[in-house]
């Protein structure tokens, strides 16, 4: 069925009510006017219960399928540098991209609390569309549920994503080797700090924006320079410290980080000083950590610096044999300490 053969319905209500999740006319109005008209593609428009893909077209991209899912519950919905919609696209795109996959298709499943302003929902959906277009992915199927007041907080989004991994790319967290370099693509902690700020609980004034961005193009560029990259992860919840620990543990190696070479914005450092937070544990939504063979690191770094998502990239440490499974920080003060995984939750509902 072609997109144009069906008359699209419009939504006149200003707030979401339980009727919009009932399966009846109100729900069709919502889906047509808010979702289908914005996401606007031939996979979604027929409104079948599933999106359908041509396998031969997929296999042209590579030899393995990558499949991932993530849920987004960030509070507040809108924050400097992004919103829950942008996050729901960039987060899932990045989860595919860090495995070396070319992200292709996303789902969009929303759980809406009754009473949400339709204008806010439209803003979120619009952000999703812009982020999807920028990342070159299509939102191909979705679901909407409305729950009564108090059963959810405003809006929760789940997105699942499908991508294809090119043959010859084999990244995994257990492949770091002594002599490898650790590279990050820019300032750490911006997202966590922006959320703390946006909540307004601390009454701090600053201009920190979330780093929320897609990384697939940057990773593509990196893999073109160095297809032998050992592993890449995006440093979301738990921050840089957590990802480095995952690398060290899975590969049974030590990772040593030089504190002074980790890029941290002045504003983020200042906020961390005041609140007793550690930037290494703050969440990011557009930062990747890459383990690259030592002799290729400078070349990869040079390529990253030329990319908009990698302008502030830096080599922050190296991999060695002992103590296996541990991450060591050389402090700017001249001492050493172990960086462990985060215990408990530093900040709830960050993404």
């Amino acid at each position, binding site marked *: 069925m072609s997109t144009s053969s069906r008359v699209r319905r419009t939504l006149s209500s200003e707030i979401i009510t339980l009727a919009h999740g009932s399966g009846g006319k109100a729900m069709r109005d919502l889906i047509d006017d808010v979702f289908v008209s914005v996401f606007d593609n031939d996979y979604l428009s027929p409104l079948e219960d599933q999106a359908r893909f041509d396998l031969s077209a997929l296999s042209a991209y590579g030899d393995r399928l990558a499949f991932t899912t993530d849920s987004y519950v960030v509070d507040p919905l809108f924050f400097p540098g992004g919103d829950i919609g942008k996050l729901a696209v960039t987060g899932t795109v990045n989860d595919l991209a860090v495995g070396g996959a070319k992200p292709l298709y996303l789902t969009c499943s929303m759980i809406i609390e009754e009473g949400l302003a339709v204008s806010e929902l439209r803003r979120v959906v619009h952000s999703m569309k812009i982020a999807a277009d920028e990342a070159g992915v299509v939102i191909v199927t979705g679901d909407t549920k409305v729950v009564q007041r108090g059963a959810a907080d405003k809006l929760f989004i789940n997105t699942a994503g499908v991508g294809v991994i090119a043959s010859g790319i084999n990244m995994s967290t257990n492949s770091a080797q002594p002599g490898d370099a650790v590279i990050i693509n820019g300032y750490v902690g911006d997202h966590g700090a922006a959320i703390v700020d946006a909540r307004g*609980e*601390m009454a701090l004034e600053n201009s920190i924006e979330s780093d929320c961005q897609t990384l697939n193009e940057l990773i593509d560029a990196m893999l073109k320079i160095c297809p032998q990259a050992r592993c890449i992860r995006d440093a979301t919840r738990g921050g840089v410290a957590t990802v480095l620990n995952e690398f060290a543990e899975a590969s049974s190696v030590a990772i040593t980080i030089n504190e002074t070479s980790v890029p941290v914005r*002045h504003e983020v*450092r*200042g906020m961390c*000083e005041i609140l007793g937070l550690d930037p290494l544990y703050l969440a990011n939504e557009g930062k990747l950590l890459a383990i690259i063979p030592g002799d290729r690191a400078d070349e990869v770094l040079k390529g990253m610096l030329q990319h908009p998502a990698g302008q502030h990239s830096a080599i922050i440490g190296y991999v060695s044999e002992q*103590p296996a499974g*541990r991450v060591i*920080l050389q*402090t*700017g*003060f*001249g*001492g*050493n*300490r*172990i960086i*462990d995984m985060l*215990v*408990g939750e530093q900040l709830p509902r960050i993404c």
Partner: protein
Amino acid sequence: MKYVDEFRDPEKAKVLIAKINALYEQIPQIAIRPLQLMEFCGGHTHTIFRYGIEPMLPDWIELIHGPGCPVCVLPMGRVDDCVALAERPDVIFTTFGDAMRVPGSKKSLLQAKAEGADIRMVYSPLDSLELARKNPDRQVIFFALGFETTMPSTALTVLQAKNEGLDNFSLFCNHITTVPTIKAILDSPDMKIDGFLAPGHVSMVVGEQPFHFVSDAYDKPIVITGFEPLDILQSIWMVLKQIAENRCEVENQYARIVPPAGNEPGLKAIEKVFEIREFFEWRGLGSIDHSGVKMRNEFARFDAEQKFSIPNLKIADPKSCQCGEVLKGVIRPWECKVFGGSCTPETPMGALMVSTEGACAAYYNFGNLPELLSKRDQQNKENTA
């Protein structure tokens, strides 16, 4: 960053380390055993670990991490009282975030919150007062804890509540005092501490005078210390210099913040609202005379202990836990039988594993765990052989 980086300058640190090393020849007792210096305050412990100061020091200096983390030393019975108050349907229980994870005998505040208690994290007692204003039909309780550092802000909040006639605001008072606790440590028979770094922010309130007994009656040097890494190194050097020169004095390294007479309006507010308790129970150290404060009778209507019934049960520390010995410097954190095994930051048994400012949690989080544990096993083997 201005006013921060100056106090973390690695070049200045090297100079101080060299000055510390240079005192070696002048302190003859080092030949017998390493010098034990206690930093009383959990904030100092945190700085020491965060900046990796311990490995920078010569091996003839042993840092003993004191009981100055109010979250850590809160006994289980008091946490149970908090939970009982928080679970009352008419109550909004407010607390600083770091007290949420402290285990009670049955559950922590975090668990009680998950089970439905209305527990809210605040950043200041004034946030609690605001909640009381906004919720006139609910009882808002502020979980007041901390040493003298936080007492003035709680006292002033109570005075404000009284001025406004807010009858739905009260304190669950768990404030503790520094001096009786240092004295209890000094009186302990197995104590071997040679000098003290005194808590900087407590001193900002109480001034220099309360620490004179350490140098005068117990002949131990004591230096009031700031919280940046260079503060710590400079204070260690100052204590060692006193030892080398055979002096015992109260010195103030943190003069940029600590006035010799303390904070007079703060002290007045404390005096007005609080009085000394006969004794207070500490996790790991047991009962210490005069080591806590309670609210004066004229503020009874703001005192959650008098306003509501609480279980007020004394719950003994787990037997296998050796926090008391660690606090007095008798054993190192990793030498404790349960360290890193049944006692970890996720499931703390003892006080010192509870907060990031606790010595055991600091060793666990920032230390090389496999190496520490194998060192302990090695020692145990040698002891049994």
